[in-house]
């Protein structure tokens, strides 16, 4: 027997540990592997197994001197100075005389600075609001109605802009919403307090900022009660006075009170008093459960408004207190414990009538946190939660069809583990996922609060920063303020983006720059798409006539060299237009990145693969991807291609790119084992040369041998099918810049590019330039004319498209900050594109703008170096790119 069978404790320990380790590395389901991550990251896993976990300490906001932190990091507040953004889009937040201005105080500035520092410290992010298009042409988005009403505030006939926020305990405390309200009103003027409860929905609990000061005799019934209040309106709570009761509010600067009365037979009267003087009287008698909105004007200069009931039972759900001048009003209807299912307990008719009476421009559903909690307890599953949420959205849309709707998915919540560490509640992501799907399906916008906090698991950092309650669900006051700030600024960014999009469309229409007078496509991030018209024409010929080969040559750095972006772009285009093969593949050693595209590569013998980054002064020309593989005599390169879309009836077109050198015989090429004779006069001088071959079938193995006596230099091979379709070449060299590319032997480049016959050049540089100092921008600018000269010489008919760099951050003093020159680089590239008749795609904006690389990192879409994307990230980016390219193509050439 291998082990003793007696009760030997030491052996038991050893056997247990061994068994756990063995099971962990076996290819078993995770449920049967004690350490599931052992196989993938053995070192980290084993280290974690013997390292005591770091205990989360109890931190309170008072323990962190945020003001000192602000002083240490004065630059971060520049992150989101929206005043500048306003200037950029020419919608200055100048409040018209008809809107009640709100004075920005020193405290507002100090708060914003503090919040920005906190956002940086907890690695939260200014994420984008997802604002889906409502029609195929994207002439309207989910938030268009809201933005239009904001714009109308500055028109000659302004109307109040009401934002109704329906939610849970998250907003019941009014920390998130009061910050959002304050910021919105600073920007657009104040419309007043908005909807106020008669008393706090849970008497004697919570803040009093969203309710009146009421006498004790009001009966409070809620939909969250054990016996839910079936006759609840949109506030989810009803206040009934069976005997004379009062409630009073601060009325400073207010001019109007709208009473949300629910009538009943024999209902009593509400007397409205302003500073003790009667200014109105509301009779609540009527048919049972009927909503009535009663408006009472308040005398100018009123300080207090009091509502006094008498003469019978009175049901009053709340009162909207507004100014006489229009501005933004934000209602905060938060009920602790509310879920989508709970909200459906509200009386549908009363809900619809009351919500419609508010005439909102935007309805925000800030729910889902309690759903995630319930799901974590297996009370119901995501399918049910989703179905209830859908019903809530339908109710909102039916009651306020002209309003925009926005779903705010729940914040990251945590769970205390037994070792006092924190783990994220997994169900939060599930809720966010289905809310995003529902937003898209129902034409609502979505703000992903968890992503804004920093993604799944961010709760630990928020706890460390003293921003969260110990329940790891509710933010403390400061945490709520930060969330409110993130929410409002996300809304504002969405408005800016919307305005940009809308503004440009008008310009395009006016300028008649789009052919045949068609409605131009909405411009998202692709600028000057008119420059692509000839390319679109070739695509159309290919699509409709199944004629020709449309080739795209992407030239760039590591984003291109990684192949993920180009592979996905090729796949997406080929799905629609057909595939004409893999295209160019550089010579080199075997690479797993190529294998999934059906390409394998191997070297045998002695090779030296060098590139333009390592040997800047080689003297010999480089290949299209900036490399050169030098083979000693007898060395061999074998490459095999298998086109997934091809068949035995296809014929392949192969090209061998190599460096022809004087006195060196041509390489010995065999295709599928058959030697291919290479005829031609012996080389007399050194230069790039491209040999063309044809071979039946779509699957080939090509072998290239250096027959000696000298060194043979190879650049790569291309493999295409002789049939209509897309070819997408990737010429990328990690670390390179436009300047590096311009320094190549331009003659050799021209020969090779000419052989590839591209219809469109896609230049994807800039990411490496972004980290250089600003004084090197000129160097970059000087490189492009040379590049354009060469590429146009090689393919005069080809169009060009410049992709801006992805967002990039650099670590400075252990803090990730925006790459030094990224803004200058993007501006320069945009200018170069427009000056040279190229289209321009703002990659960084697509990602989410400044700081988005960090958001992508947290979503596992980018690597920790804050430069490179993960395969998923590249695919996502490629999806956005091709999607937009095809939208422009469709707009240019509508489907027949």
């Amino acid at each position, binding site marked *: 027997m291998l082990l003793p069978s007696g009760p030997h404790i030491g052996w038991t320990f050893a056997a247990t540990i061994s068994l756990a380790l063995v099971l962990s590395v076996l290819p078993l389901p995770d449920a049967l592997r004690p350490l599931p991550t052992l196989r993938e990251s053995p070192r980290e896993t084993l280290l974690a197994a013997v390292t005591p976990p770091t*205990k989360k300490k109890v931190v309170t906001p008072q323990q962190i001197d945020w003001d000192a932190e602000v002083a240490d990091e004065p630059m971060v507040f520049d992150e989101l100075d929206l005043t500048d953004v306003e200037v950029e889009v020419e919608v200055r937040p100048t409040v018209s005389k008809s809107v009640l201005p709100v004075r920005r105080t020193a405290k507002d500035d100090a708060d914003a600075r503090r919040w920005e520092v906190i956002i940086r410290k907890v690695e939260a992010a200014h994420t984008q609001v997802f604002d889906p298009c409502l029609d195929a042409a994207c002439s309207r988005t989910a938030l268009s109605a809201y933005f239009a009403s904001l714009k109308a505030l500055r028109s000659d006939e302004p109307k109040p802009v009401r934002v109704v926020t329906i939610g849970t305990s998250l907003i019941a405390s009014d920390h998130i919403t009061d910050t959002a309200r304050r910021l919105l009103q600073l920007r657009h003027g104040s419309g007043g307090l908005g909807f106020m409860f008669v008393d706090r929905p849970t008497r004697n609990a919570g803040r009093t900022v969203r309710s009146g000061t009421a006498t004790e005799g009001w009966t409070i019934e809620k939909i969250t009660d054990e016996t839910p209040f079936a006759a609840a309106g949109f506030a989810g709570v009803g206040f009934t006075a069976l005997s004379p009761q009062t409630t009073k509010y601060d009325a400073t600067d207010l001019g109007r009170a709208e009473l949300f009365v629910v009538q009943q037979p024999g209902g009593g009267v509400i007397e409205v008093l302003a500073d003790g003087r009667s200014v109105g009287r509301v009779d609540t008698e009527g048919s049972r459960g009927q909503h009535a909105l009663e408006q009472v004007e308040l005398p100018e200069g009123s300080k207090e408004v009091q509502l006094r009931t008498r003469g019978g039972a009175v049901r009053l759900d709340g009162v909207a207190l507004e100014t006489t001048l229009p501005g933004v009003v934000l209602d905060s209807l938060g009920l602790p414990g509310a879920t989508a299912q709970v909200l459906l307990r509200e009386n549908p008719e009363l809900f619809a009538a009351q919500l419609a009476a508010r005439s909102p421009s935007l309805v925000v559903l800030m729910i889902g946190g309690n759903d995630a909690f319930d799901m974590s307890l297996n009370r119901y599953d995501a399918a049910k939660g989703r179905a209830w949420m859908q019903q809530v959205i339908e109710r909102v849309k039916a009651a306020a069809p002209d309003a925009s709707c926005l779903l705010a998915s729940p914040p990251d919540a945590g769970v205390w583990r037994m070792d006092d560490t924190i783990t994220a509640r997994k169900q939060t992501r599930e809720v966010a996922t289905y809310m995003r799907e529902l937003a898209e399906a129902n034409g609502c916008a979505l703000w992903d609060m968890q992503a804004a906090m920093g993604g799944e698991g961010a709760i630990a950092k928020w706890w460390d920063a003293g921003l969260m309650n110990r329940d790891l669900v509710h933010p403390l006051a400061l945490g709520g303020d930060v969330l409110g700030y993130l929410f409002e600024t996300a809304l504002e960014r969405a408005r800016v983006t919307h305005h940009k999009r809308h503004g440009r469309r008008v310009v395009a229409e006016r300028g008649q720059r789009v052919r045949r007078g068609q409605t131009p496509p909405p411009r998202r991030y692709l600028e000057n798409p008119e420059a692509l018209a000839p390319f679109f024409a070739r695509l159309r010929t290919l699509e409709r006539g199944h004629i020709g080969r449309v080739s795209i040559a992407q030239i760039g750095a590591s984003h291109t060299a990684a192949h993920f972006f180009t592979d996905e772009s090729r796949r997406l285009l080929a799905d629609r237009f057909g595939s004409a093969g893999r295209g160019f593949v550089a010579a080199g050693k075997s690479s797993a990145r190529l294998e999934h595209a059906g390409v394998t590569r191997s070297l045998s013998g002695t090779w030296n693969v060098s590139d333009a980054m390592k040997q800047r002064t080689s003297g010999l020309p480089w290949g299209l991807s900036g490399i050169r593989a030098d083979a000693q005599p007898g060395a061999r390169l074998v490459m095999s291609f298998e086109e997934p879309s091809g068949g035995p009836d296809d014929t392949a077109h192969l090209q061998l790119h190599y460096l022809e050198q004087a006195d060196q015989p041509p390489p010995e090429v065999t295709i599928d084992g058959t030697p291919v004779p290479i005829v031609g006069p012996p080389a007399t001088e050194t230069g790039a040369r491209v040999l063309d071959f044809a071979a039946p079938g779509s699957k080939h193995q090509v072998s290239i041998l250096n027959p000696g006596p000298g060194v043979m230099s190879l650049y790569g091979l291309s493999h295409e099918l002789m049939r209509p379709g897309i070819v997408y070449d990737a010429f990328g060299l990690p670390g390179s810049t436009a300047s590096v590319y311009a320094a190549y032997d331009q003659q050799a480049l021209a020969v090779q590019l000419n052989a590839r016959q591209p219809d469109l050049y896609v230049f994807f540089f800039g990411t490496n330039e972004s980290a250089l100092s600003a004084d090197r921008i000129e160097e970059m600018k000087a490189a492009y004319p040379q590049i354009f000269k060469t590429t146009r010489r090689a393919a005069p008919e080809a169009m060009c498209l410049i992709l801006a760099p992805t967002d990039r951050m650099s670590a400075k003093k252990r803090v990730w900050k925006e790459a030094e020159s990224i803004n200058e680089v993007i501006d320069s590239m945009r200018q170069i594109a427009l000056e040279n008749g190229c289209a321009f795609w703002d990659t960084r904006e697509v990602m989410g703008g400044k700081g988005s690389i960090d958001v992508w990192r947290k979503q596992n879409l980018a690597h920790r170096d804050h430069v490179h994307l993960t395969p998923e990230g590249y695919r996502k980016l490629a999806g956005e790119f091709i999607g937009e390219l095809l939208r422009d193509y469709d707009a240019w050439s509508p489907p027949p």
Partner: protein
Amino acid sequence: MSFHTTPFLVLLCVLFALYWAIARWRLPRLWLLLLASLGFYAVWNPLPLLLYLFAALVNAAAGRLMERYPKDQATRKTVMVVAVCVHLAVLVTYKYLQLLINTVGTVSGWLHLTWAPPQLGLAHPLGLSFLTFQAIGYVVDVYWKHTSGRRSLLHQLLFLTFFPRVVSGPILRASDLLEKLDHRPTLSSFDGAQALFRITQGLAKKLLLADVLGGSFVNPVFSNPTGYSALECVIAAVGYTLQLYFDFSGYSDIAIGIAGLFGIKFPENFNKPYHATDLFSFWNRWHLTLSTWLRDYLYRPLGGNQGSKLQTLRNTMIVMSLGGLWHGGDWRFLIWGALHGLFLVLWRIWWWVVGKPKKGESGLLRDVAGWFVMFNAVVFARIFFRADNMTLAVDMFRQLGTLTTSLARVSALTWGSLVACIVFYALPKPLFDKSQAFFVRSPVLVRAALLVGLALLVRQFSSIESQPYIYLQY
């Protein structure tokens, strides 16, 4: 570093191997245990170890002084009282001073006096309550000449910081540990396997029963009672009673098992407490090392039940109230303890009126009725014990008063874990003994497979919200 974390279990294996490699040498063995204990505690927070060092110094000094004057009873008593007061002063400073200050502030507010109570910001050192009682127990034992006062600082420090008990007990006497430290330890294969089984059993109780029940239902209800029906609140209260038992007895099992692996036998802390048919019996089965400590060092010195009836009742109230307050610096614990004192007083009066039944002669009906009253009294009082604050406790009682009967929020998981807890608790002892025997006799690989299987099972439930050991806070 909790007992059920992977790093702890891995380090335990390493320590086990080292310990038994040097077990024959007294000083290296004791130093190894001391260093391991200090390291174990320091992972949480090293600073309070200064308090442990201080307590050890006080005990060492007091012990030697008392030993120096074996005949001078007055001096011995003075030394003992001073040492006890020093220990209590530390406890009061860290645990109750802020409570007292806040209370004065509240009362000042009632009297319309403007006085803002200062916030001391003193963190509560882990295991301070256990440390204080154990240290006081030693000093009093020396005074009573139950044990020797001539112990080295190494012994004193190890006695107070020994890692299996340092954070949540059991509360040990000198005879349980201090006097055994110098004995060369032995560990038979059988004892070792039993200890391992005890640890396994404790882990299962804690991770598979207590945490699942607590996370799935008890904690949500106690944090928001008004969102649940009265019946659901009742289920949560009963669930908490089960959760607390499995949590604390699970911890005790692990502590006893770990000590056993090092050849040290800890006293039992639980003896099927919910089998009791009266509240006195309950306290003779629940948290035994605390209840016997209170009996020996507080109740009996106060006179116990040897005085008049009124004195007996008074002593009961004092002991139970202070025992309640020992659990934390919050008046809720005082109320909980006082409630238990009150119930015990009423029970005793009842016995005085109707006569205390002799053992085995009470009859089934009386046993059932006694059990019912005992269990409800325990469950009722624990609402104060469990609620996060007084408002939530009041909310809980208010909600119970609504008499609503919905069970809509009790998930299948909750029902399942409740049933599992009850079944596990009700399993007859022979079955446990047989399981233990099976585990002990099993081949090494089978035992290893069982342990790994338990780990996998625990991980499956890891998505359920879980809490630190409940008694970690006391």
